[in-house]
Protein backbone atom coordinates (compact mmCIF):
# COMPACT_ATOMS: atom_id res chain seq x y z
CA UNK A 1 0.00 0.00 0.00
CA UNK A 2 2.76 2.43 0.86
CA UNK A 3 5.76 0.58 -0.56
CA UNK A 4 6.40 3.11 -3.31
CA UNK A 5 6.99 5.82 -0.77
CA UNK A 6 8.62 3.83 1.98
CA UNK A 7 12.15 4.33 0.74
CA UNK A 8 11.74 8.11 0.77
CA UNK A 9 11.34 8.29 4.53
CA UNK A 10 12.84 5.15 5.98
CA UNK A 11 12.12 5.88 9.62
CA UNK A 12 8.61 7.27 9.39
CA UNK A 13 5.99 5.50 11.52
CA UNK A 14 3.90 2.91 9.71
CA UNK A 15 0.19 2.95 9.23
CA UNK A 16 -0.41 0.72 12.27
CA UNK A 17 1.50 3.14 14.50
CA UNK A 18 -0.62 6.00 13.24
CA UNK A 19 -3.84 4.15 13.99
CA UNK A 20 -2.48 3.42 17.48
CA UNK A 21 -1.74 7.11 18.00
CA UNK A 22 -5.23 8.05 16.81
CA UNK A 23 -6.81 5.44 19.07
CA UNK A 24 -5.31 7.33 22.02
CA UNK A 25 -6.97 10.64 21.09
CA UNK A 26 -10.10 11.01 23.23
CA UNK A 27 -13.26 12.74 22.09
CA UNK A 28 -12.98 16.14 23.81
CA UNK A 29 -16.54 16.05 25.13
CA UNK A 30 -16.84 12.31 25.85
CA UNK A 31 -13.32 11.37 27.00
CA UNK A 32 -14.11 7.67 27.57
CA UNK A 33 -14.16 7.04 23.83
CA UNK A 34 -11.50 7.81 21.25
CA UNK A 35 -11.89 9.42 17.87
CA UNK A 36 -11.34 5.95 16.36
CA UNK A 37 -14.09 4.46 18.57
CA UNK A 38 -16.39 7.23 17.41
CA UNK A 39 -15.93 6.13 13.81
CA UNK A 40 -14.90 9.53 12.48
CA UNK A 41 -11.46 8.47 11.19
CA UNK A 42 -12.31 7.35 7.65
CA UNK A 43 -8.87 6.66 6.30
CA UNK A 44 -5.11 6.83 6.85
CA UNK A 45 -3.04 6.77 3.71
CA UNK A 46 0.32 7.88 2.36
CA UNK A 47 -0.27 10.26 -0.53
CA UNK A 48 2.04 12.77 -2.21
CA UNK A 49 4.82 12.31 0.32
CA UNK A 50 2.67 12.81 3.39
CA UNK A 51 0.16 10.99 5.56
CA UNK A 52 -3.42 11.97 4.86
CA UNK A 53 -5.82 11.45 7.75
CA UNK A 54 -9.43 11.57 6.55
CA UNK A 55 -11.84 12.72 9.23
CA UNK A 56 -15.60 13.03 8.90
CA UNK A 57 -17.62 15.41 11.09
CA UNK A 58 -20.29 13.98 13.40
CA UNK A 59 -22.73 16.89 13.18
CA UNK A 60 -22.05 19.76 10.76
CA UNK A 61 -21.90 22.34 13.52
CA UNK A 62 -20.27 20.28 16.25
CA UNK A 63 -17.84 22.67 17.99
CA UNK A 64 -15.62 19.72 18.92
CA UNK A 65 -14.62 19.20 15.28
CA UNK A 66 -11.88 21.81 15.32
CA UNK A 67 -10.65 20.73 18.74
CA UNK A 68 -10.42 17.16 17.45
CA UNK A 69 -8.35 18.22 14.44
CA UNK A 70 -5.94 20.02 16.80
CA UNK A 71 -5.75 17.02 19.15
CA UNK A 72 -5.05 14.66 16.25
CA UNK A 73 -2.27 16.90 15.01
CA UNK A 74 -0.61 17.04 18.42
CA UNK A 75 -0.90 13.26 18.88
CA UNK A 76 0.72 12.61 15.50
CA UNK A 77 3.57 15.00 16.21
CA UNK A 78 4.09 13.30 19.57
CA UNK A 79 4.20 9.93 17.77
CA UNK A 80 6.96 11.24 15.52
CA UNK A 81 4.88 11.77 12.41
CA UNK A 82 6.48 14.69 10.64
CA UNK A 83 4.46 15.05 7.49
CA UNK A 84 0.72 14.77 7.51
CA UNK A 85 -2.43 16.64 6.74
CA UNK A 86 -5.97 16.26 8.01
CA UNK A 87 -8.62 16.11 5.34
CA UNK A 88 -12.37 16.45 5.83
CA UNK A 89 -14.42 13.76 4.15
CA UNK A 90 -18.17 14.42 4.01
CA UNK A 91 -19.50 11.35 2.22
CA UNK A 92 -20.75 8.92 3.22
CA UNK A 93 -22.13 10.91 6.13
CA UNK A 94 -21.19 9.79 9.63
CA UNK A 95 -23.60 7.50 11.44
CA UNK A 96 -23.67 6.27 15.03
CA UNK A 97 -23.64 2.76 13.53
CA UNK A 98 -19.88 3.34 13.13
CA UNK A 99 -19.32 3.63 16.89
CA UNK A 100 -17.24 0.61 17.98
CA UNK A 101 -19.19 -2.10 19.88
CA UNK A 102 -16.96 -2.01 22.97
CA UNK A 103 -17.17 1.78 23.06
CA UNK A 104 -20.93 1.51 23.55
CA UNK A 105 -20.36 -0.20 26.88
CA UNK A 106 -17.88 2.49 27.92
CA UNK A 107 -20.47 5.13 27.10
CA UNK A 108 -23.02 3.36 29.32
CA UNK A 109 -20.48 3.04 32.16
CA UNK A 110 -19.84 6.77 31.81
CA UNK A 111 -23.56 7.51 32.23
CA UNK A 112 -24.51 8.07 28.60
CA UNK A 113 -27.04 5.65 27.14
CA UNK A 114 -25.42 4.40 23.91
CA UNK A 115 -27.27 4.50 20.59
CA UNK A 116 -28.76 1.20 19.56
CA UNK A 117 -26.58 -0.61 17.02
CA UNK A 118 -27.85 -0.73 13.48
CA UNK A 119 -30.73 1.63 14.24
CA UNK A 120 -29.98 4.10 11.50
CA UNK A 121 -29.05 3.31 7.95
CA UNK A 122 -26.74 5.88 6.52
CA UNK A 123 -26.33 7.11 3.02
CA UNK A 124 -24.05 4.97 0.89
CA UNK A 125 -21.76 5.77 -1.95
CA UNK A 126 -23.09 3.75 -4.85
CA UNK A 127 -21.61 3.30 -8.29
CA UNK A 128 -23.74 4.08 -11.30
CA UNK A 129 -21.79 3.72 -14.48
CA UNK A 130 -18.57 5.65 -14.19
CA UNK A 131 -19.64 8.16 -11.60
CA UNK A 132 -20.30 7.44 -7.96
CA UNK A 133 -23.57 8.70 -6.57
CA UNK A 134 -24.73 9.17 -3.02
CA UNK A 135 -27.59 6.80 -2.37
CA UNK A 136 -29.97 8.04 0.35
CA UNK A 137 -32.76 5.58 -0.43
CA UNK A 138 -32.13 3.57 2.72
CA UNK A 139 -32.08 6.61 5.01
CA UNK A 140 -35.04 6.51 7.34
CA UNK A 141 -36.49 8.77 9.97
CA UNK A 142 -35.55 8.06 13.53
CA UNK A 143 -38.67 8.17 15.72
CA UNK A 144 -37.57 9.07 19.22
CA UNK A 145 -40.80 7.94 20.89
CA UNK A 146 -40.32 4.46 19.45
CA UNK A 147 -36.95 4.09 21.15
CA UNK A 148 -36.77 1.98 24.27
CA UNK A 149 -33.77 3.54 25.96
CA UNK A 150 -32.47 1.72 29.05
CA UNK A 151 -31.27 3.89 31.93
CA UNK A 152 -27.45 3.70 32.07
CA UNK A 153 -27.58 3.65 35.89
CA UNK A 154 -30.29 1.13 36.81
CA UNK A 155 -31.08 -0.47 33.42
CA UNK A 156 -34.77 0.29 33.79
CA UNK A 157 -36.57 0.78 30.50
CA UNK A 158 -39.16 2.99 32.16
CA UNK A 159 -37.51 6.12 30.79
CA UNK A 160 -38.77 9.07 28.84
CA UNK A 161 -37.43 11.82 26.71
CA UNK A 162 -37.19 15.27 28.27
CA UNK A 163 -35.80 17.03 25.23
CA UNK A 164 -34.66 16.03 21.77
CA UNK A 165 -31.40 17.85 22.41
CA UNK A 166 -28.87 17.76 25.21
CA UNK A 167 -25.50 19.02 26.31
CA UNK A 168 -23.91 18.37 22.91
CA UNK A 169 -25.40 18.11 19.40
CA UNK A 170 -25.15 14.31 19.48
CA UNK A 171 -27.23 13.77 22.62
CA UNK A 172 -30.84 13.98 23.85
CA UNK A 173 -32.03 14.37 27.45
CA UNK A 174 -33.86 11.50 29.12
CA UNK A 175 -35.10 10.76 32.59
CA UNK A 176 -35.50 7.43 34.34
CA UNK A 177 -38.88 6.92 36.01
CA UNK A 178 -37.45 4.30 38.39
CA UNK A 179 -34.24 5.80 39.75
CA UNK A 180 -35.46 9.30 38.81
CA UNK A 181 -32.06 10.28 37.47
CA UNK A 182 -31.77 12.38 34.33
CA UNK A 183 -29.31 11.05 31.76
CA UNK A 184 -27.94 11.73 28.29
CA UNK A 185 -28.85 9.52 25.36
CA UNK A 186 -26.46 9.35 22.41
CA UNK A 187 -28.99 9.78 19.60
CA UNK A 188 -28.97 7.26 16.75
CA UNK A 189 -27.94 9.35 13.77
Amino acid sequence: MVSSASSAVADRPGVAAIWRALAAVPDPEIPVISVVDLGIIRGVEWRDEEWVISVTPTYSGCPATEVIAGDIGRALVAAGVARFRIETRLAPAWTTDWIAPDARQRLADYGIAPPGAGTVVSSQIGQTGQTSRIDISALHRYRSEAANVPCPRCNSTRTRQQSRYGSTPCKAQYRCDDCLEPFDYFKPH
Partner: protein
Amino acid sequence: MASDQQLLDYVLRLADSDLILAQRLGEWVGHGPVLEEDIALTNVGLDLLGQARLWFAYAGEVEGRQVGSSGAGRSEDEFAYMREGGGFRNLLLAEQPNGNYADTTARQFYFDVWHELLLRNLAVSRDRRIAEIAAKALKEVMYHAERSADWVIRLGDGTELSHTRMQSGIDDLWMYTGEMFAADDTDLALAAEGVAADVGALLPAWRDRVAAVLDLATLTMPSAAWMQRGGKQGVHSEHLGHLLAEMQSLQRAHPGAQW
Protein backbone atom coordinates in the same frame (compact mmCIF):
# COMPACT_ATOMS: atom_id res chain seq x y z
CA MET B 1 -25.59 26.40 -19.84
CA ALA B 2 -25.47 27.64 -16.26
CA SER B 3 -22.54 29.91 -15.43
CA ASP B 4 -20.18 29.78 -12.47
CA GLN B 5 -21.79 33.02 -11.30
CA GLN B 6 -25.17 31.27 -11.17
CA LEU B 7 -23.67 28.36 -9.26
CA LEU B 8 -22.09 30.82 -6.82
CA ASP B 9 -25.41 32.63 -6.32
CA TYR B 10 -27.20 29.35 -5.80
CA VAL B 11 -24.77 28.06 -3.18
CA LEU B 12 -24.89 31.42 -1.40
CA ARG B 13 -28.68 31.18 -1.20
CA LEU B 14 -28.34 27.86 0.56
CA ALA B 15 -25.62 29.21 2.84
CA ASP B 16 -27.42 32.46 3.65
CA SER B 17 -30.77 30.92 4.61
CA ASP B 18 -28.92 28.57 6.98
CA LEU B 19 -26.78 31.35 8.43
CA ILE B 20 -29.56 33.89 8.95
CA LEU B 21 -31.93 31.38 10.52
CA ALA B 22 -29.09 30.13 12.74
CA GLN B 23 -28.52 33.71 13.90
CA ARG B 24 -32.24 34.13 14.67
CA LEU B 25 -32.26 30.89 16.67
CA GLY B 26 -29.14 32.04 18.49
CA GLU B 27 -31.10 35.05 19.73
CA TRP B 28 -33.06 32.61 21.90
CA VAL B 29 -29.98 31.76 23.99
CA GLY B 30 -30.96 32.46 27.58
CA HIS B 31 -34.52 33.37 26.59
CA GLY B 32 -36.09 29.98 25.84
CA PRO B 33 -39.43 29.26 27.56
CA VAL B 34 -37.85 26.29 29.34
CA LEU B 35 -34.22 25.24 29.57
CA GLU B 36 -34.68 22.17 27.38
CA GLU B 37 -36.14 24.25 24.58
CA ASP B 38 -33.49 26.91 24.94
CA ILE B 39 -30.93 24.16 24.35
CA ALA B 40 -32.94 22.56 21.54
CA LEU B 41 -33.36 25.78 19.57
CA THR B 42 -29.73 26.66 19.78
CA ASN B 43 -28.71 23.12 18.81
CA VAL B 44 -30.86 23.41 15.70
CA GLY B 45 -29.17 26.76 15.07
CA LEU B 46 -25.77 25.14 15.52
CA ASP B 47 -26.56 22.48 12.92
CA LEU B 48 -27.65 25.19 10.49
CA LEU B 49 -24.54 27.23 11.18
CA GLY B 50 -22.38 24.19 10.49
CA GLN B 51 -24.22 23.58 7.25
CA ALA B 52 -23.82 27.25 6.31
CA ARG B 53 -20.07 26.93 6.78
CA LEU B 54 -19.92 23.94 4.42
CA TRP B 55 -21.85 25.90 1.78
CA PHE B 56 -19.73 29.05 2.26
CA ALA B 57 -16.52 27.05 1.91
CA TYR B 58 -17.81 25.68 -1.39
CA ALA B 59 -19.00 29.14 -2.51
CA GLY B 60 -15.47 30.42 -1.92
CA GLU B 61 -14.04 27.69 -4.13
CA VAL B 62 -16.56 28.38 -6.90
CA GLU B 63 -15.74 32.08 -6.70
CA GLY B 64 -12.04 31.31 -6.84
CA ARG B 65 -12.29 29.44 -10.11
CA GLN B 66 -14.30 32.13 -11.89
CA VAL B 67 -12.76 33.63 -14.98
CA GLY B 68 -10.79 36.73 -14.10
CA SER B 69 -10.58 35.90 -10.41
CA SER B 70 -7.21 35.87 -8.69
CA GLY B 71 -7.77 32.21 -7.80
CA ALA B 72 -8.92 32.76 -4.25
CA GLY B 73 -12.57 33.30 -3.41
CA ARG B 74 -13.87 34.87 -0.24
CA SER B 75 -13.55 33.06 3.07
CA GLU B 76 -16.49 31.91 5.21
CA ASP B 77 -16.02 34.92 7.48
CA GLU B 78 -15.86 37.37 4.59
CA PHE B 79 -19.13 36.05 3.22
CA ALA B 80 -20.82 36.17 6.62
CA TYR B 81 -19.47 39.39 8.05
CA MET B 82 -18.41 41.68 5.23
CA ARG B 83 -21.37 41.72 2.87
CA GLU B 84 -24.07 44.38 2.94
CA GLY B 85 -27.73 43.40 3.28
CA GLY B 86 -28.30 43.54 -0.47
CA GLY B 87 -25.62 40.91 -0.94
CA PHE B 88 -27.48 38.34 1.12
CA ARG B 89 -29.54 35.76 -0.76
CA ASN B 90 -31.48 34.16 2.10
CA LEU B 91 -35.20 33.47 2.06
CA LEU B 92 -37.32 36.23 3.60
CA LEU B 93 -38.78 33.62 5.94
CA ALA B 94 -35.40 33.02 7.57
CA GLU B 95 -34.91 36.68 8.58
CA GLN B 96 -38.35 37.22 10.13
CA PRO B 97 -38.12 38.14 13.82
CA ASN B 98 -38.49 35.48 16.50
CA GLY B 99 -41.74 36.90 17.91
CA ASN B 100 -43.18 34.63 20.57
CA TYR B 101 -42.44 30.92 20.83
CA ALA B 102 -45.30 30.00 18.52
CA ASP B 103 -44.02 32.43 15.86
CA THR B 104 -40.55 30.88 16.06
CA THR B 105 -42.11 27.41 15.88
CA ALA B 106 -44.19 28.30 12.80
CA ARG B 107 -41.15 29.77 11.02
CA GLN B 108 -39.09 26.68 11.82
CA PHE B 109 -41.83 24.28 10.77
CA TYR B 110 -42.37 25.91 7.37
CA PHE B 111 -38.62 26.04 6.81
CA ASP B 112 -37.83 22.51 8.02
CA VAL B 113 -40.43 20.81 5.83
CA TRP B 114 -39.11 22.67 2.78
CA HIS B 115 -35.48 22.16 3.78
CA GLU B 116 -35.85 18.40 4.09
CA LEU B 117 -37.53 18.11 0.68
CA LEU B 118 -34.89 20.33 -0.90
CA LEU B 119 -31.95 18.40 0.58
CA ARG B 120 -33.42 15.06 -0.54
CA ASN B 121 -33.27 16.43 -4.08
CA LEU B 122 -29.85 18.01 -3.72
CA ALA B 123 -28.39 14.77 -2.33
CA VAL B 124 -28.60 13.40 -5.86
CA SER B 125 -27.29 16.58 -7.52
CA ARG B 126 -24.89 16.09 -10.40
CA ASP B 127 -22.58 18.51 -8.60
CA ARG B 128 -20.70 16.13 -6.34
CA ARG B 129 -19.95 18.68 -3.63
CA ILE B 130 -23.58 19.83 -3.42
CA ALA B 131 -24.66 16.19 -3.15
CA GLU B 132 -22.19 15.47 -0.34
CA ILE B 133 -23.15 18.51 1.74
CA ALA B 134 -26.87 17.89 1.18
CA ALA B 135 -26.67 14.21 2.18
CA LYS B 136 -24.83 15.23 5.35
CA ALA B 137 -27.25 18.05 6.20
CA LEU B 138 -30.31 15.94 5.41
CA LYS B 139 -29.74 13.66 8.39
CA GLU B 140 -29.74 16.65 10.72
CA VAL B 141 -32.69 18.36 9.08
CA MET B 142 -34.90 15.25 9.24
CA TYR B 143 -34.57 15.52 13.00
CA HIS B 144 -35.34 19.25 12.94
CA ALA B 145 -38.47 18.61 10.88
CA GLU B 146 -39.72 16.03 13.31
CA ARG B 147 -39.20 18.30 16.28
CA SER B 148 -40.84 21.40 14.82
CA ALA B 149 -43.89 19.42 13.65
CA ASP B 150 -44.28 17.99 17.15
CA TRP B 151 -44.32 21.50 18.61
CA VAL B 152 -46.87 22.78 16.09
CA ILE B 153 -49.14 19.91 17.15
CA ARG B 154 -48.47 20.39 20.85
CA LEU B 155 -49.16 24.12 20.82
CA GLY B 156 -52.00 23.97 18.28
CA ASP B 157 -53.78 21.18 20.09
CA GLY B 158 -52.91 22.65 23.48
CA THR B 159 -54.59 25.36 25.53
CA GLU B 160 -56.83 28.04 24.12
CA LEU B 161 -54.01 30.54 24.39
CA SER B 162 -51.36 28.29 22.77
CA HIS B 163 -53.80 27.41 19.98
CA THR B 164 -54.54 31.07 19.27
CA ARG B 165 -50.87 31.99 19.20
CA MET B 166 -49.89 29.02 17.04
CA GLN B 167 -52.60 29.87 14.53
CA SER B 168 -51.39 33.49 14.45
CA GLY B 169 -47.82 32.39 13.79
CA ILE B 170 -48.94 30.05 11.00
CA ASP B 171 -51.09 32.80 9.45
CA ASP B 172 -48.60 35.66 9.77
CA LEU B 173 -45.67 33.82 8.19
CA TRP B 174 -47.65 32.20 5.38
CA MET B 175 -46.87 35.00 2.92
CA TYR B 176 -43.15 34.19 3.18
CA THR B 177 -43.57 30.57 2.11
CA GLY B 178 -44.25 31.15 -1.60
CA GLU B 179 -40.70 32.28 -2.25
CA MET B 180 -39.38 28.84 -1.34
CA PHE B 181 -41.02 27.39 -4.45
CA ALA B 182 -40.57 30.28 -6.88
CA ALA B 183 -37.79 29.45 -9.34
CA ASP B 184 -35.91 32.25 -11.08
CA ASP B 185 -33.42 32.03 -13.95
CA THR B 186 -30.65 30.83 -11.65
CA ASP B 187 -32.77 28.01 -10.26
CA LEU B 188 -34.03 27.01 -13.68
CA ALA B 189 -30.62 27.01 -15.39
CA LEU B 190 -29.08 24.86 -12.66
CA ALA B 191 -32.10 22.57 -12.31
CA ALA B 192 -32.02 21.92 -16.06
CA GLU B 193 -28.50 20.52 -15.62
CA GLY B 194 -29.44 18.39 -12.63
CA VAL B 195 -27.33 20.54 -10.30
CA ALA B 196 -30.14 22.29 -8.41
CA ALA B 197 -33.55 21.07 -7.33
CA ASP B 198 -36.69 21.97 -9.26
CA VAL B 199 -38.16 23.95 -6.36
CA GLY B 200 -41.58 24.36 -7.94
CA ALA B 201 -41.97 20.59 -7.95
CA LEU B 202 -41.46 20.47 -4.17
CA LEU B 203 -44.65 22.41 -3.47
CA PRO B 204 -47.24 19.58 -3.56
CA ALA B 205 -45.27 17.45 -1.09
CA TRP B 206 -44.70 20.49 1.13
CA ARG B 207 -48.40 21.38 1.14
CA ASP B 208 -49.37 17.77 1.92
CA ARG B 209 -47.01 17.57 4.86
CA VAL B 210 -47.97 21.00 6.24
CA ALA B 211 -51.68 20.22 5.86
CA ALA B 212 -51.32 16.87 7.64
CA VAL B 213 -49.52 18.43 10.61
CA LEU B 214 -51.89 21.41 10.86
CA ASP B 215 -54.80 18.99 10.81
CA LEU B 216 -53.36 17.04 13.74
CA ALA B 217 -52.74 20.37 15.45
CA THR B 218 -56.41 21.43 14.98
CA LEU B 219 -55.13 24.46 13.07
CA THR B 220 -56.45 25.95 9.86
CA MET B 221 -54.26 25.97 6.78
CA PRO B 222 -53.93 29.52 5.45
CA SER B 223 -55.32 30.09 1.98
CA ALA B 224 -54.06 33.56 1.07
CA ALA B 225 -52.57 33.52 -2.40
CA TRP B 226 -50.43 36.64 -2.34
CA MET B 227 -46.80 35.93 -1.49
CA GLN B 228 -43.78 38.07 -0.64
CA ARG B 229 -40.67 37.61 -2.77
CA GLY B 230 -37.20 39.03 -3.15
CA GLY B 231 -34.86 37.45 -0.61
CA LYS B 232 -33.16 35.17 -3.11
CA GLN B 233 -32.45 38.23 -5.30
CA GLY B 234 -31.17 40.36 -2.41
CA VAL B 235 -34.32 42.42 -1.77
CA HIS B 236 -35.04 42.02 1.92
CA SER B 237 -37.48 43.05 4.62
CA GLU B 238 -36.44 45.77 7.08
CA HIS B 239 -35.53 43.09 9.63
CA LEU B 240 -32.35 41.86 7.93
CA GLY B 241 -30.41 45.09 8.45
CA HIS B 242 -30.97 44.98 12.19
CA LEU B 243 -29.93 41.34 12.34
CA LEU B 244 -26.73 42.06 10.39
CA ALA B 245 -25.93 45.08 12.55
CA GLU B 246 -25.70 42.78 15.53
CA MET B 247 -24.12 39.80 13.78
CA GLN B 248 -21.47 41.81 11.94
CA SER B 249 -20.63 44.54 14.44
CA LEU B 250 -17.45 42.99 15.78
CA GLN B 251 -15.95 42.23 12.37
CA ARG B 252 -16.94 45.68 11.12
CA ALA B 253 -15.21 47.37 14.06
CA HIS B 254 -12.21 45.03 14.01
CA PRO B 255 -11.92 43.55 10.50
CA GLY B 256 -10.20 40.17 10.49
CA ALA B 257 -10.39 39.75 14.28
CA GLN B 258 -9.89 36.14 15.37
CA TRP B 259 -10.77 34.28 18.54
